């Protein structure tokens, strides 16, 4: 028996959302390599509606209300059309087109939205909304890519990023965002009691929109979603009660949105949550979470990732290890070199700005080494020995020469060293004061000179 029809039947019979959504998943599977073709061949354009109506009304033990039956027939008829467009990629590639696939999939999406608002679809069917939303975005991307590749083929002598070819390059994806937004509203504004509510779909839909907005460079629009969610927050079920895949994805995106706003404290909270509850085998996603969590943690706590943390992620190891080593050693010269070597990648990943702040930490570590090198003062009156806390500015100047790999001829400007020192003191990375007239730094006693570093 046809696999799609079987899923449709079983989904309805068992009242299983995932099974019904499987019917609406427009791909072949390893188990059914001809899944799409077989569904397409089960009927023809003239008879698709009547065949589906007959099929749906035959399902044992299921009596769909008339309006609901009509709605499903319409949805699966539209779906059948999409499958026809998809089958073309194999059977007659010259007439196949992602724009056509997208346009007909959009019909499926609109019919489904209408069915939820008018035909009383139950909330158990909501995985259908997920799968239709998911493929709407994917097909829109493919359609846009197809359009832009044809555009550049038609005008080969135009520059790639010429404004004329750039215009409308995300046209379908932008349109898809508007459809997804209606799905978002459909979930958010459902007034049904909590257990039967489409509100359970809200984070899934929000995530689809986040992905879409990031892709079309409209991250700002994500904030409208967050505002809408906030306004309804008392009516939403607790976050812990949603499936983890919805929440981890949601937290990741909210974290990145805060990150891009340079709100690193809030970003870290969300990203740490995403990290904690992420599936342990989802390597790629864990890597993405850490890409932003590491700089957040550096800015917020002035702490570096451990070796074991980066060890499992070669790409992150490459991205962050040189920088972290320089910060750790207080190697300012190496830090600047690592920043410029990685600049393109850092800017692309939008992590340049927070990483830049790592220079202060490198400087702090360099000066901390001066403090350690100062050793202990002679013990008085049987007190335990304490670190020397009065240190000549000249020693910091010398350290700076080491850290910046200054050559023999370059001179050290003591004013500038004092400036750097007072900057670190101001930022709370060092505790103490400058006794200018004596050319000394007087640091806090009792393990508080460099807060959080043990000395």
């Amino acid at each position: 028996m046809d696999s799609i029809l079987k899923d449709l039947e079983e989904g309805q019979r068992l009242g299983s959302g995932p099974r019904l959504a499987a019917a609406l998943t427009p791909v072949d599977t390893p188990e059914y390599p001809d899944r799409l073709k077989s569904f397409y061949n089960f009927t023809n354009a003239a008879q698709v509606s009547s065949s589906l109506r007959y099929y749906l009304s035959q399902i044992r033990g299921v009596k769909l209300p008339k309006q609901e039956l009509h709605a499903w027939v319409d949805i699966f008829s539209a779906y059948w059309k999409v499958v026809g467009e998809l089958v073309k990629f194999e059977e007659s590639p010259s007439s196949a087109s992602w724009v056509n696939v997208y346009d007909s999939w959009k019909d499926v999406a609109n019919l489904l939205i209408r069915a939820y608002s008018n035909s009383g679809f139950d909330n158990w069917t909501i995985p259908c909304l997920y799968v239709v939303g998911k493929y709407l975005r994917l097909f829109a991307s493919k359609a846009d890519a197809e359009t832009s590749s044809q555009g550049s083929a038609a005008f080969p002598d135009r520059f790639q990023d010429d404004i004329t070819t750039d215009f409308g390059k995300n046209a379908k994806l932008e349109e898809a965002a508007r459809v997804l937004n209606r799905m978002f509203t459909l979930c958010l504004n459902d007034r049904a009691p909590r257990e039967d509510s489409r509100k359970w779909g809200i984070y899934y839909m929000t995530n689809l929109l986040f992905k879409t907005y990031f892709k079309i460079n409209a991250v700002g629009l994500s904030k409208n979603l967050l505002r809408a969610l906030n306004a309804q927050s008392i009516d939403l079920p607790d976050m812990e009660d949603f499936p983890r895949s919805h929440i981890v994805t949601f937290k990741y995106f909210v974290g990145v949105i805060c990150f891009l706003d340079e709100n690193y404290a809030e970003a870290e909270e969300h990203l740490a949550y995403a990290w904690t509850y992420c599936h342990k085998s989802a390597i790629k996603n864990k890597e993405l979470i850490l890409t932003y969590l590491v700089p957040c943690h550096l800015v917020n706590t002035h702490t570096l990732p451990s070796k074991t943390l980066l060890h499992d992620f070669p790409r992150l190891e490459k991205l962050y290890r040189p920088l972290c080593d320089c910060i750790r050693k207080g190697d300012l010269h190496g830090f600047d070199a690592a920043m410029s070597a990685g600049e393109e990648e850092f800017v692309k990943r939008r992590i340049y700005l927070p990483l830049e702040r790592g220079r202060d930490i490198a400087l702090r570590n360099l000066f901390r080494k001066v403090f350690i090198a100062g050793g202990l003062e002679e013990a008085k009156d049987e007190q335990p020995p304490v670190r020397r806390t009065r240190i000549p500015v000249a020693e910091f100047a010398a350290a700076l020469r080491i850290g910046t790999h200054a050559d023999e001829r370059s001179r050290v400007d003591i004013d500038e060293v004092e400036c750097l020192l007072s900057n670190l003191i101001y930022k709370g990375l060092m505790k103490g004061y400058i006794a200018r007239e004596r050319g000394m730094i007087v640091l806090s006693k009792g393990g508080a000179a460099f807060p959080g570093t043990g000395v």
Partner: protein
Amino acid sequence: MSNNQSQDSKAAEASQQTQQQKPTILEEDDEFEDFPVDDWPENETEQAAGATANGKDLHLWEESWDDDDAAEDFSKQLKEELKKVDSSR
């Protein structure tokens, strides 16, 4: 040492660059992936995996800044440089 100044101008340049770069989009392979399963129990979370891998402590972040091996070298190096600083004044 004009390092600080050049650093500042570099930072300004960089922030300008990020402003300009805002239109670049994350590449396809940088997209957060769909999880293969919808939900998973506590013991399949990263938190649980990290806890079993490291005894009970999640060792995510470097806790110590001390580098005892290099401390002595630095001390020596510092004395060398200090002479140069003193003589250049």
